């Protein structure tokens, strides 16, 4: 479980390289064929996909080959490299698997083409969070780079995002989740209810936050606001003054000895928690599962201020046309048709088309992962290992409770460079 899911956040590219090598041989020559309908069903089609999210899941490439005959040549990168590649080497990929905040940076450069929603078979099944930003009609739209704000353009060729849903979708959502703090319920010794609890003097020297500037600053913002230190106009797009105030606060907390460590990789966060070095820290959901799989109590604690969410999707390169464009649509339609969705749901992520995924999951799996019900039997990981015992309930509960409680999305700020500089000062201070 951990191997593929941690890769979902762009940390491990190793598993990917394997797929890359395996399929590289098939890649040759697909560009030479120019769409004769009678032939194309029999021709080997290769789509080159790179990115941070689903590109890390080999099982999807294998299933795609089996179901569609399309070879997916996948390359995994971390998010910064993905952003740069999407922007600077548009001919090196057919499908970009990137997060929405990356799309905000990259799409306006004209390297991608929008998708005609009329050709997307399951467009109607896509969770409304990605259409109008509201999970339910009465939901409040979260701060940051909410996917729907960069999800549409008025017409092909447009470089500005549309304000409302149109016929042209920039990215089809694939994988997303709601992040919060992980805790050691056996060691914190009290109820944890708010992001501010990580700054409790009682936990001095026993907390950690992640040292990835673009995500760490969002966690810091949630903490600052929860403590009542500041009220951001938009956490996802801070002003210089807001950045200064946030970083100064972090520097002071660091000097007071509040933090035990700052982690950068998935396994660091697992070790910090499992060894008891920290009792409360920023965490990703597969890391919580990894700690639990060692038989150590660990909880992905829902907090009253809400979650920090992230989401990724698939976009089409501008150069795709003809037969390959058709194949790309076919792949994306297959993607939303349910098998992949069920696969992602079973790993603790969410799929964009929940209704289609449901058909591929058992009632118990659906109840545990999506509805927040206690598991009736053991919940198994895709590799057959027991993830949760019968009777367990998912932290944070149902899909609606978790994704409905999103306070902000991962984002890219206008003052990005300034923020990174200040963040480095915080780490060096």
């Amino acid at each position, binding site marked *: 479980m951990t191997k593929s899911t941690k890769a979902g956040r762009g940390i491990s590219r190793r598993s990917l390289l394997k797929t890359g090598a395996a399929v590289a041989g098939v890649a040759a020559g697909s560009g030479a064929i120019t769409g004769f309908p009678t032939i194309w069903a029999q021709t080997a089609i290769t789509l080159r996909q790179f990115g941070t999210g689903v590109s890390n899941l080999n099982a999807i490439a294998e299933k795609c080959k089996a179901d569609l005959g399309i070879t997916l040549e996948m390359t995994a990168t971390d998010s910064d490299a993905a952003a740069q590649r999407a*922007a600077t080497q548009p001919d090196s990929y057919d499908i970009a698997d990137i997060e929405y905040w990356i799309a905000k940076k990259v799409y306006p450069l004209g390297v991608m083409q929008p998708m005609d929603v009329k050709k997307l078979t399951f467009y109607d099944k896509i969770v409304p969070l990605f259409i109008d930003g509201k999970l339910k009609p009465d939901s409040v739209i979260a701060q940051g780079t909410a996917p729907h704000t960069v999800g549409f353009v008025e017409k092909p060729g447009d470089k500005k995002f549309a304000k409302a849903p149109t016929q042209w979708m920039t990215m089809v959502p694939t994988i997303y989740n709601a992040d919060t703090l992980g805790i050691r319920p056996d060691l914190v010794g009290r109820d944890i209810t708010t992001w501010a609890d990580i700054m409790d003097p009682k936990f001095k020297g026993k907390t950690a936050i992640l*040292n990835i*500037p673009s995500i760490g600053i969002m966690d810091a913002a949630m903490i600052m606001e929860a403590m009542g230190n500041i009220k951001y106009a938009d956490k996802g797009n801070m002003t210089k003054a807001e950045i200064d105030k946030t970083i100064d606060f972090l520097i002071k907390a660091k000097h007071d000895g509040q933090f035990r460590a700052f*982690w950068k990789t998935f396994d660091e966060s697992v070790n910090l928690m499992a060894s*008891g070095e920290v009792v409360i820290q920023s965490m990703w959901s597969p890391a919580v599962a990894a700690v639990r799989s060692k038989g150590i109590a660990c909880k992905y604690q829902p907090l009253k201020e809400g979650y920090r969410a992230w989401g990724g999707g698939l976009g089409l390169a501008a150069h795709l046309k003809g037969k390959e464009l058709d194949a790309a649509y076919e792949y994306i339609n297959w993607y939303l048709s349910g098998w992949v969705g069920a696969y992602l749901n079973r790993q603790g992520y969410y799929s964009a088309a929940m209704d289609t995924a449901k058909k591929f999951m058992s009632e118990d799996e659906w109840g545990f992962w999506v509805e927040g019900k206690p598991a009736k039997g053991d919940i198994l990981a895709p590799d057959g290992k027991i993830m949760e015992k019968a009777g367990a309930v998912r932290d944070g509960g149902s899909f609606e409770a978790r994704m409905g409680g999103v306070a902000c999305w991962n984002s890219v700020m206008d003052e990005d460079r300034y923020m990174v*500089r200040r963040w480095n000062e915080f780490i*060096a201070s």
Partner: protein
Amino acid sequence: MVAIAAEETKRSRRKPGAARRLVAYLQALPLLVILGGFFLLPIAMIVVVSFWDYDFSGLYPAFLSMNYTDTLGSWVTWKTYLNTLKFTAMVWAATLFIGFWVAYFLAFHIRRATTQTVLFLVCTVPFLTSNIIRMIAWIPVLGRNGLVNTTLIKMGLIAQPIEWLLYSEFAVVLAMVHLYTLFMVTPIFNTLMRIDRSLLEAARDGGASNWQVIWNVVIPLAKPGMAIGTIFVVTLVMADFSTVQVMSGGQSASVALMMKNQMSLLQYPAAAANAVVLLVVVLLMVAAILRVVDIRKEL
């Protein structure tokens, strides 16, 4: 060495001038290709790129001093350099002290050559595992619930676990000393083995005490080895990022770590400028060491 060189000249004098020169160039060619292709060219590229402009989507050839003014104008850089130099000084002092005495013991207290070789090989045993593993192995030892703390608590010596054992500067220095001491032992051992034993006897005959022998004979003669070891340790510590990152729990900065951060954010020109500054600093340090000690005495 001198004898061989003289022999060489004598032999080559027999050949006509042009052919002789051609042969010499041909002989130097492989080294030139390797050094030029894998060393000089990359460094030249780093220097060139350090003057370029950049933004999120690319690098733009230019001639800007921005990357240098940004780097040198920030207090973070200065603080980080200071911090790195502090680590270097501490690790250097510790490895020199330990390295010298280990080498001294091996060279003068072990009589049999076989035992010497065996013990020296024992010193290299930790190197059979990777750097990363040797470093990470400290974590369960030093941690809050680690070996040291658990033992001390069970013995009743302390009531609360000692927090500064792990994720602290102490942990960084400890891990580095562990990783790099052998780089000091080897060259010092090498020089000590070349010391003519009759010098020691002469000193003793002249009435020198053990300490006087060490201070006035052994140490001065071991200086070239110490200098070479120092160069190893200083360059390794100055360029280290993983030890600092892991052992300080990400709480401490080092110059190389700063560069790594910049590279992961695709700010290559800024990282290149930083690399050039670091290169200059390290070269100055090496030059200073070479001024103090003539390492050619060893070779």
